[in-house]
């Protein structure tokens, strides 16, 4: 395991959305801050910094994780995927994103990237979830605008395809 000195800035290299990138950071820097301010991937949002709201959820080696509870150094050499990776290069939304739009599953859109990433992971593992399973996974996220109904409907729509 890599050892780093507390006061030393270190260069952290990882794969972000298929691109190999690196930037310097203090060992105590959170992955959420590193993605946003180190690598400029501002699509990942920070809502609580204590692991409850789920806005900062990203995929690390394919698994949904809270980037605010992860240090940037822990992502060294890993494959990180964020919301910026979901749409096609020409901007066409993927089916999950399209379903969110069709079902008015977002208003201010701040919590949305985390929810999209959680379900990108979950639907890959369980493409046909029941509504109870959808609600169970979604309960790891806080949304203050929608009352959640549109989000559940959007994911159900994807699951039924």
């Amino acid at each position, binding site marked *: 395991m890599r050892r780093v000195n507390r006061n030393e800035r270190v260069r952290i290299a990882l794969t972000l959305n298929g691109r190999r990138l690196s930037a310097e950071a*203090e060992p105590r820097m959170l992955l959420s801050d590193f993605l946003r301010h180190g690598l400029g991937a501002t699509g990942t949002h920070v809502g609580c910094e204590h692991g409850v709201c789920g806005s900062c959820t990203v995929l690390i080696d394919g698994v949904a994780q809270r980037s605010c509870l992860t240090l940037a150094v822990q992502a060294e050499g890993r494959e990180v995927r964020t919301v*910026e990776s*979901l749409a096609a290069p020409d901007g066409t939304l993927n089916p999950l994103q399209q379903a*969110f739009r069709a079902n008015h599953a977002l*208003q201010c859109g701040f919590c*949305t990237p985390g929810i999209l990433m959680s379900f990108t992971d979950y639907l890959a593992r369980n493409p046909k979830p029941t509504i109870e399973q959808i609600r169970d996974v979604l309960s790891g996220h806080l949304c*203050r*605008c*929608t*009352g959640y109904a549109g989000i559940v409907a959007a994911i159900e729509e994807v699951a039924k395809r």
Partner: protein
Amino acid sequence: MGEQLGKPVLRKEDLALLSGRGRYADDLPVPVGTLHAHVLRSPHAHAEIVHIDTAKAAGHEGVWAVITGEDVRRLSDPFMAVIKTPVTQYSLAVERVRYVGEPVALVVAESRYIAEDAAELIDIDYAPLDAVLDPVAACDGAAPLLHPQAKTNEISVRDFRYGDPDGAFARADHRIAMTVPFPRLSFTPIECYVVVAQHNAAEGSYDVLANFQGPFSMHPVMARALRVSGPKLRLRIPPDSGGSFGIKLSVFPYVVLIALAAKITGRPVKWVEDRIEHLVAASSGPNRVTRIEAAVGNDGRVLGLRLDQLEDYGAFLRAPMPGPLYRMHGAVTGAYDIRDIAVRNRVVLTNKMPASLIRGFGGPQLYLALERLMHRIAVELKLDPLDVIKRNLIPAQKFPYRTAAGALYDSGDYARAVEIAIGQGRLDDLKRRRAAARAAGRSYGIGFAVVVEPAMSNMGYLSTVMTASAREKAGPKNGAVSMATVNIDPLGAVTVTADVTVQGQSHETVLAQIVAEELGLTPDDIEVVLEMDTAKDQWSIAAGTYSSRFASGTAVAAHKAAVQMREKLKAIGARQLNVLPEDVELAQGKIRSRSNPDNALPFGRVAGTSNWAPTLLPEGMAPALSETGVWTPPELEPPSSDDRINTSLTYGFIFDMCGVEIDPVSYQVRVDRYVSMHDAGRVMNPVVAAGQIRGAFAQGVAAALYEEFSYNDEGAFLSGTFADYLVPTVSEIPDVEILHYESPSPLTPLGAKGLAEGNCMSTPACIANAIADALGVDEVILPATPRRIHALMEKAKQ
């Protein structure tokens, strides 16, 4: 309603937001050399600041400044307040702290990490004082004083009388009274506050980016605090904001604080609030204790009403407080035809974070008291609760209806809306469920609530807090201006700007629908740019997104701007088509002859004329490049000399009913079925409307069952994380059946009313009534947590 309006048009906002391309405040670029700030906050609820030693922190590597209350007092003025009292507030505590979390010092450093490290080196000597948390206790003469120079914590008391309340109470068969507390809570937008400030020393001006939501009546408050004229404070609002619900008004003290930090350091300064700071100190809705009493006939008819509303604003009364006490003033009798009323409004300060705007804004507090009382009347008189409601509703033939306190309810048929909602077996189903549950020995109750939902505030309502003679001296305050602009570019492309701040309400989409409708285009043809810049955009004190002002305000202004542009384009097109202007229509992307649609030109060709060939314009016409619609409805008059006030422009109606079941083991309240009927006038986009209603409903459920900012007796804050402050997840939000009945407002050309706050007002009351029915108890304290339900059930057993 039209080609575009009234249709479930998909949102223009979504493509960017779903792709991680939103532009929220913390996503935007900052100038090279930007410093970062961290706020050091009070650990005490009430204490004298004896001494602050900043030397060690200021000497820490990478630190540019450590700013304290003394600096702020030297460089800025106290915030202007609505009520003139000896209470002063700056952007940092001066001499004394009055709530846990109050900003005491600001550290500005090369990075946020360094600023936080340095803050730990600040040494503050506090002399703790006794704190007072309970609003009733705070009114007692023996209570600790928050602001000794004010000589009282109860800093405003006003009495209002309309009709003959004493006569009504003397005459009535029954007098039924309750005391109803409403808790403290916030709707905690998931994005916290962000401020980036720059100071231009040569010009003595500030340029500040903040996710402020308005109203822009706060702009003069900020400018005055910074000791500059309005134009010297350029305030920019980013294109996206991560929710607000009223809360982001209260970023304003930090706008001033960070602006001062930019002046002191000579560098741009950025501050991003974290969640812990947000929960402890950002903003809260005010808690209220209402003593409410009705004079009632044997038939359940309410003849008179008395309210004593004691509202707790925390440690300071910040502008535009005490808004929640007065925003509902005209509508204080709700949906009922009650003419004889007495209202006492009292403002008290306690050792809690300052209260301010929050979705519902005074409605939840009022309606919890009023609707609990209506339920109580039915129980006392052994009548059906719904019959008591129906007997007191304003009859349809009385619209437009002037309430006792002066509101002009523009339209509605409340009885009809109720009938539709309970029809198709909905009420029967609830009753069946209750009977079945009770037969099986379970606790099940039905609740009702009716609410009048105001929209687009009269900016003069707050002056009702002053006496008529004081108002006369201060000059008239009334009305509300809305503005929107339609612009045309050289190739005829249309853009729209408007005086709203984006927070998720889909304004981009609905404005595009409104303008497309008039110009014969589609919403995809219209660019809507809603980031705001006070130096260059149109705005008034009423600008911003709050008090449901969009549907009855800015939407109308956009409609007016589009109509103005349409009429000009018709006149221009008439010359090019060789027809009379009356024969010109804008449709399907064309400007064409109505009688001979083949005689047509592309929209862009005609619309571009003002750029390329302005001499071709009809004589005397100014080029059709930019049209601003300005909307100032005359109904928003100032308070009358006898204190009657039309507090808002439009008034929607909501009837809610629900069934709840109480779990005998966990003491949790489960909402079994919920029906919500809305009359919001014409609905401009049903998808957006449903989203707003569902969002407000979830927050109403949160207020009823989960969310509360709680403090212990010493003033320690007990809700400092999302593990302690319970924001409902999907698992906690029940389904809601939404119904609509449309009574278009006759006062606006679109006929639309507000609808985004109503369930914050109705749902807590409806659920509380259902709990009262389930348990057969008189008093239900919200949020009705399992602990409180358990206590109620234990008490009922005795």
